[in-house]
C-alpha cells in the first residue's frame, strides 16, 4: 500500500504553539508524524526584556489563557529567587488556593474537550456546566474569570475575606458531590473505555527519554510532580502525593484517570489550605515604586518552577541592575509534551488523531483542516470531517459489542 502525507492544522485554536502535523499514513494507519510549530509565536520573551518585572507579570499571564496563574506564579518565584524576597505565609496559602482552582478548571475544561473529541457532546456540556462554578469563585476572589491579575512579586494583590472562604468551601462541597457523576461517565462508560484504552500509548521508557511532564508522564508510571519533588508555597506544609496509576499502561485512559484523581486532590488541597490559612500580610513590599527601585538595583539569576495543570512550568530570569530583566525564559509544559506525541501517534488510526492530540491537553486540541495529498490530487478534510470520523468510530465500536 502506498504512503500518503496528511497535513493537519495549522489553525489550532487556543495553543501557545499552534502546530501543524504532517502525518505519513498507510491506509488508515499512521506511520510517522512530523510536527511544525511557530504559528503562535508572538515574541513574548523578547518583549518582556523591554518591560519591568511588574509589567511582565501581566504579560506572562497572557502567554496562555488557561494557565493564566501558572506563568505569573513561576515568573514571580523566579524573581523572588533571584532577589531573595521572603513571601508572607498567608500569600503562600492564597497562591496555592488559586493555583489549585486553576487546576480544577483546567482539568474540567480538558475533560469536556476530550469528550467532545470522541463525539460525546452531552458530556462536554455536563462538564462545562460544572466548570462555571469554579469560574465564579475565581471571579469573586480575583475579580476576573480568566486573567486574574492577582499575582505580584512578593505576594498577592488581593486578600481572601471570610466571605470568600465560605464560598470556597461551599464550592468544594458542590464539586465533591457532582464529580461522582463525571467520574462515573469517564471511568465506567463502555464507549469511552473502548476509545481510550490501549490507544496513544506512551511507554515509561519513552516518557523518560522525551522528558514529558505533568499528567502525561504520570500516566506512564513516573511519579514526577514539582509539588512533591521540590515543595514550595503551601505544598510544603501538607502531604501531597504524585498521582500515578497502579498499573500504568500509559494510554489515554490512564491520562483521563490521572486528571480526574487530580481534581479530587485539588479539592483536598484547597480544603486543607482553608483550614490552615494563617493570618497576616499578603505582600512583602506594598509600595510598587519602592519594589521596582529595589528590583532595578538587584543582580543575580533565579529560577521558578510550578506544577501547572499540564505539567512543570519553568521560568528563568537574570537581573543585572537594570529596570528590565536581562533575560527572561519561559518554558511551558506543552513544549515538553510535544515530542511524546510522536510515539503516541505511531500506528494509531486517523480517527484517533483528535483524541490523541487532545490527550496531552495542549490547551484545546483539534485539527482545523486536514488535507490528504493523494497522487498529487488534493482532498481536503476539515475539522468537521475529522470529528465525524471520530464519531463514526465510536458508533462502530458500539455496534461490534
Amino acid at each position, binding site marked *: 500500500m502506498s504512503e500518503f502525507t496528511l497535513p493537519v492544522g495549522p489553525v489550532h485554536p487556543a495553543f501557545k504553539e499552534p502546530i501543524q502535523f504532517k502525518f505519513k499514513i498507510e491506509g488508515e494507519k499512521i506511520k510517522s508524524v512530523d510536527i511544525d510549530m511557530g504559528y*503562535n509565536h*508572538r515574541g*513574548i520573551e*523578547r518583549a518582556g526584556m523591554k518591560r519591568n518585572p511588574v509589567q511582565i507579570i*501581566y504579560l506572562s499571564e497572557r502567554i496562555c489563557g488557561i494557565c493564566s496563574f501558572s506563568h505569573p506564579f513561576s515568573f514571580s518565584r523566579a524573581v523572588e529567587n533571584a532577589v531573595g524576597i521572603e513571601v508572607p505565609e498567608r500569600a503562600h496559602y492564597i497562591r496555592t488556593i488559586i493555583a489549585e482552582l486553576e487546576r480544577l478548571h483546567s482539568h474540567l475544561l480538558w475533560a469536556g474537550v476530550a469528550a467532545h473529541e470522541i463525539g460525546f457532546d452531552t458530556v462536554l456540556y455536563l462538564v462545562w456546566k460544572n466548570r462555571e462554578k469554579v*469560574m465564579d469563585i475565581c471571579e469573586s476572589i480575583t475579580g476576573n474569570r480568566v486573567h486574574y491579575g492577582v499575582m505580584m512579586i512578593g505576594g498577592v494583590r488581593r486578600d481572601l475575606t471570610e466571605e470568600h472562604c465560605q464560598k470556597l468551601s461551599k464550592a468544594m462541597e458542590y464539586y465533591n458531590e457532582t464529580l461522582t457523576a463525571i467520574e462515573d461517565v469517564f471511568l465506567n462508560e463502555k464507549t469511552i473505555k473502548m476509545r481510550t484504552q490501549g490507544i496513544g500509548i506512551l511507554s515509561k521508557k519513552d516518557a523518560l527519554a522525551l522528558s514529558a511532564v505533568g499528567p502525561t508522564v504520570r500516566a506512564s508510571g513516573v511519579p514526577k510532580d514539582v509539588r512533591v519533588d521540590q515543595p514550595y508555597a503551601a505544598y510544603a506544609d501538607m502531604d501531597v502525593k504524585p498521582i500515578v496509576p497502579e498499573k500504568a499502561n500509559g494510554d489515554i485512559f490512564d491520562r483521563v484517570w490521572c486528571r480526574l484523581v487530580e481534581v479530587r486532590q485539588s479539592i483536598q488541597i484547597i480544603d486543607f489550605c482553608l483550614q490552615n490559612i494563617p493570618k497576616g500580610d499578603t505582600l512583602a513590599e506594598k509600595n510598587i515604586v519602592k519594589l521596582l527601585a529595589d528590583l532595578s538595583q538587584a543582580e543575580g539569576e533565579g529560577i521558578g518552577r510550578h506544577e501547572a495543570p499540564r505539567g512543570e512550568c519553568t521560568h528563568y530570569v537574570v537581573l543585572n541592575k537594570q529596570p528590565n530583566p536581562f533575560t527572561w525564559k519561559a518554558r511551558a509544559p506543552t513544549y515538553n509534551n510535544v515530542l511524546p506525541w510522536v510515539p503516541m501517534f505511531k500506528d494509531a488510526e486517523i480517527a484517533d488523531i483528535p483524541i490523541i492530540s487532545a490527550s496531552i491537553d495542549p490547551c484545546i486540541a483539534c485539527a482545523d483542516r486536514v488535507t490528504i495529498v493523494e497522487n498529487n490530487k488534493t482532498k481536503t478534510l476539515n475539522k468537521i470531517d475529522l470529528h465525524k470520523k471520530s464519531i463514526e468510530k465510536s458508533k462502530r465500536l458500539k455496534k461490534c459489542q
Partner: protein
Amino acid sequence: MQALKRAIWVFHLNTGGCNGCDIEILAALTPRYDLERFGIKLVGSPRHADVLLITGPVTRKMEERLKRVYAQTPDPKMVVVVGNCGSSKGVFHHHYNVVGPVDKFVPVDVYVPGCPPRPEAIIYGVAKAWIKLEKLKEEKK
C-alpha cells in the same frame, strides 16, 4: 428578541492570541450562557459561516491564513473581533512577530473589548453583527 429570520453560523479563528478569548467563546456556547438558543452555532469551516469570530493579534505566520479564511467565507459576511489584542494588539504591542491588529488585513464590523471579554459581551457582539447582517440584506432587496 424578535423572531429570528435566520440562524447565524459562526466560524472561530485564533490568529495567535493567548486563548483566553477562545475559552470564553467556548464558555458562551455551553449551558450557562447557551449561545445556541439564539440559533448561533459554531461551525468547523469558514465556507459555511456568516460571521467570523477572530481573536488574537495576528502573528507573522498567521497573516496569510487570516486573509485566506476571510476570502473563503461567502458574502455577505460579518467580522467580529473578540478581545483587546485583536482590536489594537493590546498587551502584545511592539512585539516583533506580531503584525496585527486584525483590521489591518480584513475589514472589521464589530469590536468586542476586554481581555478577555465576558461571554455576555461576546454574545452581544455577535448579536450586533447579526443585526447588521440583516440590515445589509434588507438593503440589497
